[in-house]
């Protein structure tokens, strides 16, 4: 495999990522299932890097899952998104930083639609004004939070305490990167590195000392879909997609999966539990699972933040084997202690625990 060929593609798909002043919008899944990631993103940008990141409490869901499940019409979601733009406009922000790949895809789709069909933009302005008396500017850039972490990956590397290296052998840790479909498959030009060989997560892993695995099913969807998992009986379809990926990556013995999409992170993690329960199969070495991390969790880990503050314990597949390899210290007894010091009940049936 020639790395130069990939570098040529990465050079072609470079995206303008502003240096400062982000209007941040959250992800429904992330703030519910692994809230430490968004908390750390804000901390990273605001405190570590000294950037201005603004979050408006009036921001709502983008209704993306409803949209992709055919319960929210396109006109409605355009108006919901336009309202978010209005909040950004009101605060003087031009660059939207989106925590969710589904939302990111939707924002892109809407802004592209407005470019090609200006009458839909006018209609949306009218709907929003009638409903809320708000007005908005179309943002200058639509950013995914992984774009921002990518932008500052080398600054993070310069503050690194525990690089992605097996501290006992000095070997780089092997990692799988998984890009959410809606990050670049719909609009390759808006994703760093495009759709076939995205660079967003590869750039982070390499900058932090790890080695990226290019396995055959790398480009395959995790199976998240939308309406496909809403009904329990359908979920085998979703899970089978993840399974196909695990089977394909297994021979490479990855230490962890790094994903940039909330749905992928959640499903690739939780399906490992389901498959283990149903089929008795795990895909890591020595019967372990493969931890699936967010880029903020990984950034926090390499920078030496307390793993429990980052919330890595809120996945089904636990990260202790990875942290042991990286030489990251952690206190087992504090794993499930709440902010107020009270003890939380430890989840059951975790993998790698």
């Amino acid at each position, binding site marked *: 495999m020639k790395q130069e060929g990939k570098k040529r593609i990465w050079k072609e798909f470079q995206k303008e990522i502003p240096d400062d002043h982000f209007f941040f919008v959250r992800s429904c899944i992330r703030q519910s299932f692994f809230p430490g990631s968004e908390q750390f993103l804000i901390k990273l940008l605001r405190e570590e890097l000294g950037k201005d990141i603004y979050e408006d409490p009036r921001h709502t869901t983008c209704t993306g899952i409803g949209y992709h499940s055919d319960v929210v019409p396109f006109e409605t979601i355009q108006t919901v998104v336009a309202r978010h733009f209005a909040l950004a406009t009101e605060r003087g922000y031009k660059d939207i930083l989106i925590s969710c790949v589904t939302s990111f895809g939707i924002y892109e789709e809407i802004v592209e639609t407005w470019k090609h069909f200006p009458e839909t933009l006018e209609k949306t302005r009218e709907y929003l004004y009638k409903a809320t008396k708000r007005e908005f500017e179309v943002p200058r850039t639509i950013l995914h939070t992984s774009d921002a972490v990518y932008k500052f990956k080398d600054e993070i590397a310069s503050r690194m305490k525990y690089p992605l290296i097996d501290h006992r052998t000095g070997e780089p840790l092997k990692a799988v990167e998984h890009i959410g479909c809606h990050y670049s498959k719909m609009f390759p030009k808006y994703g760093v590195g495009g759709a076939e060989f995205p660079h967003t997560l590869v750039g982070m892993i390499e900058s932090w000392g790890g080695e990226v695995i290019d396995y055959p099913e790398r480009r395959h969807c995790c199976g998240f879909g939308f309406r496909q998992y809403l009904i*329990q*009986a*359908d*979920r*085998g*379809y979703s*899970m*089978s997609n993840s*399974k*196909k990926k695990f089977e394909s990556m297994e021979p490479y013995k990855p230490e962890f999966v790094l994903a940039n999409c909330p749905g992928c992170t959640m499903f690739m993690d939780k399906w490992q539990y*389901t*498959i283990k*329960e*149903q*089929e*008795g199969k795990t895909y890591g070495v020595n019967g372990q699972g493969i931890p699936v991390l967010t880029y903020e969790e990984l950034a926090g880990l390499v920078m030496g933040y307390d793993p429990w503050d980052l919330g890595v314990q809120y996945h089904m597949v636990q990260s202790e084997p990875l942290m042991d390899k990286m030489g990251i210290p952690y206190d087992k007894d504090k794993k499930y202690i709440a902010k107020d010091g009270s003890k939380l009940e430890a989840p059951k049936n975790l993998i790698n625990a």
Partner: protein
Amino acid sequence: MKNFGFSSIKPRVIDYDKNNRTVLDYIMEHEPSFALCIGCGGCAATCSAARFTDMSLRKINILLKRGENDEVRRLINKCMLCGKCTLVCPRGVNTRNVIFLTQQAFKKLDNYAV
């Protein structure tokens, strides 16, 4: 094992490297004209069985070439051996013999339905 109300699905993909093509090899050895099929579907269009069943000789030809034998087994017994497929084939494939040979191969190689 826990019951989740769902389970993983067998992939639909034709896994060429895993499939077994001994039935195909047997046909090719005894009926080399089989190589000439271009998938036009003339055979299937005129097929008596195709009118009332899901048998398609065009599809069977492809499935044999890929080694998807289970599906062939299910379909091939619908053939009434009328011979119209051979009559219309623009590439001169002896399709009727392909059917015979497939049945034979299943019996010989799989010890099937003996």
